[in-house]
Each structure stands twice: as C-alpha cells, then as structure tokens.
C-alpha cells in the first residue's frame, strides 16, 4: 500500500469508529458551546468585541485538547499501535492519519462553534475563518504527535495539556492576530509557517515516538 | 533605591550556585557511602 493509501485507511478507520461510538464529537460540540456561554459570564460589560474574539481562540484550543486526549485511546487499549508499527506502513503515515481524523473532528465542532460565536458575540470575517482553519492544521498535527507521546507515559492524558499548551501559544498569537488586526496577512503567513515547520518535524520524528 | 534590587539579583545567583554545590556535595557523600558498603560486601564474599 502507498503512503497516502495507508493514511486514508487509518483516517477512515477513526471516522468509522467515531460514527459508531458517537462519544468524542458530541462531547466536543457541547463543550465548545458551553464554554462560549461561560465566556459571556466571564467578560465584564466593557470588555468589548476584541476580548470575545480572544476567548474564541481559547475555546478552540481547549476543544481541540478535549478531542486530542481521546485520539490514541483506542489504539492503546487494543494494542493496535504496536501492530501498526510492525506493519510495513510508514510510521509517519500513522501520525498523518491521526492528524487528519482529529482535524475532521475539530472542523466539525467548529462548524457549530463558529456560528454559535456569531450569534452570541460578534461577526466573524473571512480572515478569522482562514486563521481558524490554518491554526487547526497546526493544532491537530502537533496535538496528535504530542498525544502519541503522552500515551506512552504513565501519566497519559494528564500530560497532554502540559506538553501541548507551550507549543500551541504561537498558534493562538497567529489566530488572534488574524482576527483582530486590520492587516491579517502577516498573521496568516505566520500560521502557514508554523504549520509547515512543525508538520515537517513531526513527520520526520514520529518514527522515534512509537519505536524503541 | 535600586541598589537593593541589584544586591538581590546577585544574591539570588550566589545562593543558587551555593545551593547547587551543596546538593552535589551531599550526593557525592552518599555515593561514597554506597561505594564503601559495596566494597564491604565484596570483601565479605571473599
């Protein structure tokens, strides 16, 4: 099987599993909408539209964390990861497949979250949505990678936010910048740079995360 | 007025270095003790 064939198979497996179990995506949806409601109460009256946009990114970040914490659970519990590593598939294909399925969940959650934000808070313009999509790629690629690392530890999901948040800070900067500033080009370009750099390093080093 | 902050900064670095030296010293003593115990064990074995 080719690299992309493997990736497609793995991603499709995750989506099928979710379709049957229906636990991760509803949780993410409910979480993000509840978070937005909490933010309404957390923002003092004069906080303004910009504060709301900033909090949108916080909501996205933590919704992604929620989904990612479950990302490798099935593989670990069934011992699938070892089997995948033993198979002739490229190890990085495992990571790419997981990134794509996490991305699908996050985008689906945002398909509800962004309109909710529109209704509850303020308008969303094209650069914001572009920023969200670009940042999603970074969040899911780095997130899936780091989630695989934390799965290999004793602390497991407890470690994921600790490992993930420092790496996610540049994405928040890029995303909020794209939403808030008049000239968002630089921030979108920065998000693209982050995605390219980290996807490369993740792809190159995933092999070492799953083998001895 | 700012002299106390300058002094505090240098003091912090000094204390950190000193603390580190003390920790290394303690570890070294412990290692020597363990080594002595192991040497005894080897001797006891004959």
């Amino acid at each position, binding site marked *: 099987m080719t690299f992309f064939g493997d990736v497609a198979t793995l991603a499709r497996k995750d989506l099928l599993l979710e379709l049957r179990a229906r636990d991760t995506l509803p949780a993410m949806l409910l979480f993000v909408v509840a978070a937005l409601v909490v933010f309404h109460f957390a923002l003092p009256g004069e906080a303004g539209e910009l504060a709301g946009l900033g909090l949108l990114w916080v909501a996205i970040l933590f919704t992604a964390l929620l989904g990612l914490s479950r990302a490798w659970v099935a593989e670990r519990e069934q011992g699938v990861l070892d089997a995948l590593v033993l198979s002739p598939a490229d190890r990085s294909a495992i990571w790419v497949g997981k990134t794509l399925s996490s991305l699908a969940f996050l985008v689906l959650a945002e398909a509800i979250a962004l309109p909710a934000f529109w209704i509850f808070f303020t308008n969303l313009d094209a650069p914001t949505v572009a920023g969200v999509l670009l940042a999603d790629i970074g969040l899911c690629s780095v997130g899936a990678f780091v989630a695989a690392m934390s799965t290999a*530890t004793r602390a497991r999901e407890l470690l994921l936010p600790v490992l993930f948040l420092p790496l996610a*800070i540049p994405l928040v900067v890029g995303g909020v*910048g794209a939403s808030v500033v008049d000239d968002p080009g630089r921030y979108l370009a920065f998000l693209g740079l982050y995605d390219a750099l980290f996807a490369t390093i993740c792809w190159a080093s995933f092999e070492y995360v799953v083998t001895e | 007025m700012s002299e106390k902050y300058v002094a505090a*900064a240098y003091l912090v670095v000094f204390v950190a270095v000193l603390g580190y030296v003390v920790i290394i010293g303690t570890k070294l003593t412990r290692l020597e003790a363990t080594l002595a115990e192991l040497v005894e064990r080897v001797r006891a074995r004959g």
Partner: protein
Amino acid sequence: MLPPLAVVLFATAISLIFFWVPEDADDPAQRIFYFHVPIALTAYSCFGWGAWKALRLLWKRDERADLESYVAIHQGTIFGALTLVTGSLWAKATWGQWWLWSSRQLVLFLVLFLFYCAYFMLRFSVEPGPRRANLSAVYALFGVVLTPVSFLAIRLAEDFIHPTVFTRDGPQMTASMFTTFCVSLVAMLTLFATFYSIELAGKRIDMRIRELREALS
C-alpha cells in the same frame, strides 16, 4: 581544571562589574544586566547543547547522549529560572513592575521555561530505557524549533497586545561595558561547563554503582 577556572572568571567578572565599569546614569539597575543577559545566553546554550545531544542520540544511536542531553537541559532549566528571577528584579528596579509583558526576551523565556519544565514531567513519567531516551530527545529537538517560532509570535503579538514596545539595551555599549559583559558571559558559560561535567560524572557513577549493587545481590 574547570572549577578553578570558573571561580577565577567569576571573581574577575564581579570585580569588573563592581569596581571598574562606570555606572550608567540612565539605568541604575544596569549592573543586573551584566548577570541577567549572560545567564539568559547560557540557558540558550544549554538547551542548544541538549538538542545537539538529542540529535546524536536519534541519528547516530549514541546511547550515552541521552544522559548528556538530559543534564544539559536540566542545567538550562536552572539557568532559565535564574534568568526569569534576575529579569524580574531588573524590571522592578528599572520600570517598577515585577513583570513586563512588553519585554520580548522575558516572555520568550517564560514560554520556553514552561516547555522545558514539561520535559521533566515527560521524562519522569516514562520508565528508564530506550523509549524514554527517544521521547526526551524528540521533545528536546522540538524546543529548538519552538524557540525562533515563539520569538516571532511574541513580536507579532506586540501589535495587538502592547502598542508600546520596550526595546532593551538601546543605548550603545561602551568598550568597558562590552568587555565586562563578555567576561561575565564567559564566566557563566564556564560555570555551565563545570556544573555539566560534574553532574554528568555524578550521574554516570550513580548508574555504575547501581549496576554493581545489582550484580552483587
């Protein structure tokens, strides 16, 4: 050889700082700067060295490099904590606040400090062995990529967080200031080298003694 050298360099640096270099009229807390920046640069060197050893572990399968990488990053975290503390004291002395979000270097250090603290949480959550070595090494390498990306992010963030940008060491350094700074930098790096070799030797001896104990029982 290293410890006496470190002591001599340190004594020289402190003498220069307190007895030779003229005080800066604009910035009475200038003297902290002679320590703070060398400590920061040393911390970066520690992380860089740790990442280099991590690369050697993954690429050349050099097993000794795991411990070397760990010790370097451990030192880097200590120097990093000192950077934050001295930086905070300098901010308080110069600007009246304990923390300056507008100082790019301080904010970058905070992000990196968080990142490398997580390194230890990762490392201590895995049983010793090749798995732990691999995971630690990969994480250390991520740190190298994160550093410039974070710096860029912090610069970009200034546009919408703080319209006023605080630029550090704006005034040019005189020759005497520069010399003092360099001596201080070399002193710090020598201190790192000293601590690094001592800690590494200590950990290796620890390992051998443990092996010995197991062999005897």
